[in-house]
């Protein structure tokens, strides 16, 4: 099972490039696709889900170009788009039955699967209620259920935890971890904690370009010894922001505790254990400053 993204670029009309020469090889596991808003994550997801066509480059599913055989991928694809709708007059069962028919799934097997999925996403007790009356989080869970209808080998989820309450968010993270055995899961998000909890691999994307592809441990290693806690008076905070990359602040009785990222610590700063958010910010900042070569970073783990 392999998904190969080879020099994929996407340009909308004559406008800006949303993706440029994006290359990535994926095997079973959870890939966390992290990037700021407008980085090109959703464009990449749409290309992989056969919704939109790349301007340049190829995507190969088990060696076959999806442009020549899109249905080969679609048959085994589960896709949860960032923005999707539902038919308000149908209930959850009817909606999933409809999508199962469109996906060409076997009727008795899909009926059983729908029951199980509705239990899994906690919608069993509202299964007969029209989707028009569902809250945003409940609709999102219907979206998760439809993505799992065909037991996909490639599961693409774009901002899946948007609109979920903290409890459901944790449940969804656990679900992704459980599903990750013999399938490829691509989780696109800008919420670092979602990736931290589930991803076996992380791809950082910015301005349509792959900034880094590494394991979480490798990314953390890269920022090790570069995170500091610096206690400063409140009045000095703005000046400190001008000089250092500060990822977080907390006001305490002795002043502001600033989390500083940098090669060298400010005077009096104490070292801290790095987390993935630090690594994310560090890599992106260095990339924007032009001090990280995407090709080298991308090659670290791939």
């Amino acid at each position, binding site marked *: 099972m392999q998904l190969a993204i080879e020099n994929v670029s996407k340009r909308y009309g004559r406008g800006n490039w949303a993706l440029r020469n994006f290359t990535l090889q994926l095997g079973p596991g959870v890939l966390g696709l992290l990037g700021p808003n407008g980085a090109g994550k959703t464009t990449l997801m749409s290309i992989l889900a056969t919704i939109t066509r790349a301007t340049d480059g190829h995507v190969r599913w088990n060696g076959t170009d999806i*442009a020549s055989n899109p249905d080969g991928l679609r048959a*085994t694809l589960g896709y949860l788009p960032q923005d999707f*709708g*539902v038919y308000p007059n149908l209930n959850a069962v009817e909606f999933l039955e409809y999508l199962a028919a469109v996906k*060409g799934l076997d009727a008795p097997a899909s009926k059983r699967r729908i029951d199980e999925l509705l239990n899994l996403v906690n919608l069993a007790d509202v299964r007969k209620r029209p989707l028009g009356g569902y809250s945003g989080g409940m609709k999102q869970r219907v979206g998760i259920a439809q993505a799992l209808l065909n037991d996909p080998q490639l599961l693409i989820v774009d901002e899946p935890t948007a609109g979920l309450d903290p409890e459901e968010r944790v449940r969804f993270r656990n679900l992704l971890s459980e599903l990750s055995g013999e399938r490829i899961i691509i989780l696109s998000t800008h919420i670092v904690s979602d990736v931290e909890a589930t991803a076996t691999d992380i791809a950082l994307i910015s301005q349509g370009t792959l900034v880094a592809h590494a394991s979480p441990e490798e990314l953390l290693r890269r920022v090790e010894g570069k995170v500091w806690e610096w206690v400063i008076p409140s009045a000095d905070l703005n000046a400190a922001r001008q000089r250092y990359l500060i990822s977080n602040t907390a006001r305490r009785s002795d002043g502001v505790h600033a989390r500083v990222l940098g090669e060298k610590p400010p005077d009096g700063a104490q070292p801290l254990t790095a987390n993935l958010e630090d690594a994310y910010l560090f890599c992106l900042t260095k990339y924007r400053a032009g001090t990280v070569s995407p090709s080298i970073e991308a090659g670290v783990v791939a």
Partner: protein
Amino acid sequence: MNSARVLYHMVRADFLERLRRYSFLLTLAGALWVAYAVATEEVWIVVGNGYRGVYNSAWIGALMAICCSTFLSLAGFYIVKNSVQRDTDTRVGQILAATPMRKDFYTIAKTLSNFAVLACMVGILMVAAVAMQLMRAEAHSFSLWKLWAPFIFFALPTMLLAASAAVLFETLPLLRGGVGNIVYFFVWTAALALGVTGLDDPTGLQLLYRSSRQTLHAIDPTDNNNFHFSLTIGGEHAVRTFPWNGIDWTTNVLLIRLGWIAVAVAIAYTATIFFHRFDPARSWFKRRALSAVTPPASAVQESAPSHNLSAAHLSPMPQPRSGIPFFRIVAAELRLMLKGKRWWWYLVAAGLAIACIFAPFDAARGGVLVAAWLWPIFVWSPMGSRETRHATESLIFSSPRALSRQLPAIWSAGVLVALFAAGGVGVRLLINGDHHGLAAWFGGAVFIPTLALALGVLTGGSKAFEALYIIWWYMGPAHHIPGIDFMGTTPASSSPVPYLIATVLLLAAAYWRRRTRMAYA
């Protein structure tokens, strides 16, 4: 910020939003087509015994203005009846609702913005009128006042009426959707009929009638009895001309036109009463959907989480089969089409279907069939646009063979609805051995859903089909007019061949358009 400034910015933002859409270009193209049709005498006014006015400034201005106030007041309504809905869809409405915006400001702003769009079309025809007089050169004197006054006093008030009616319809829960599209057609027909009864109608037809009759009477007194006046599309052209110098815009005439402007303002203010200010609790349809099927206690509660289930409990799924029976997808589409219809809808549909079987044959073919194929209009109208409207495209387009199976399944479901609705007539035609009638009936059964599907896919909405179908239905089958009777309601109805050919072409257009929307077929 003063009130005028608030109103100005509300109108401006809404107008600019529409101005920058491709649909606005289509609107302007439609206006240009009307201008062309008038210039080439495809549309003309015949008065008395085969007279028309000399193409001087007054006659050209009146003719084009009347075209605006009649045709564009119908088409224009459908074009602009989406401004409140757009604010709902884009959720801009919720932002506006959280501001100190007054409800009457909102409805007046929407009316003015609608009016601005329609006034652009009128403006194009005003310029076209100048070009038309110069090109035809039938009269040498040129008067901009005589040319444009009918636009100002006939067309613009009518456009304001259509603009305010569109806002009122959008704020009334019952008229917000497809029902409103149909109701407006009959309101528009009734408004035109006012002129026939001798009253001053909103379009100005009656004023033009009186003025031209008076002028013609002075020239040809014999023509006074059974005076004929009609706005005509196509047909034989008038052979005689008479000079007409325009309407005398007296205070009385202007007051009549001002009266219609007042009616338009009153309609816009009436809309304020019904405007829901984007409060979901005041959304009639949502309330109905919730109350109809939801136990009150659980209506607002999220489902309780359970913790003993995991992905490990999921049954394995066999891979999708390419040979899944097509009827399953058709059945799924059919269920989607019919879901949400109320019991009385089914009752009427069943009554009409039964009447198609048991009513006297001529009545079944001529009257019941016409009704039976009008009743499912809202079943057909979302065909092809449902995925866009409900944002399910990405879910469906990422499914295997979505183009080659789902689109034909939608079409098949639509045809099945037509066959169920009026199958009795088809069976009786078959039993009677009326093969021509059967072919005409079958032509209608496939043409109607195909038209719905194609227009849905091409326009991304249901309104185009609803508007076109009701007008065509009224002009053709309802009046049994040969040539445009696509249902074959009488033995003299037109041949089904053109409709079968149109069906194939429309299907091809729908397939092509859907194909271009998908990255891979």
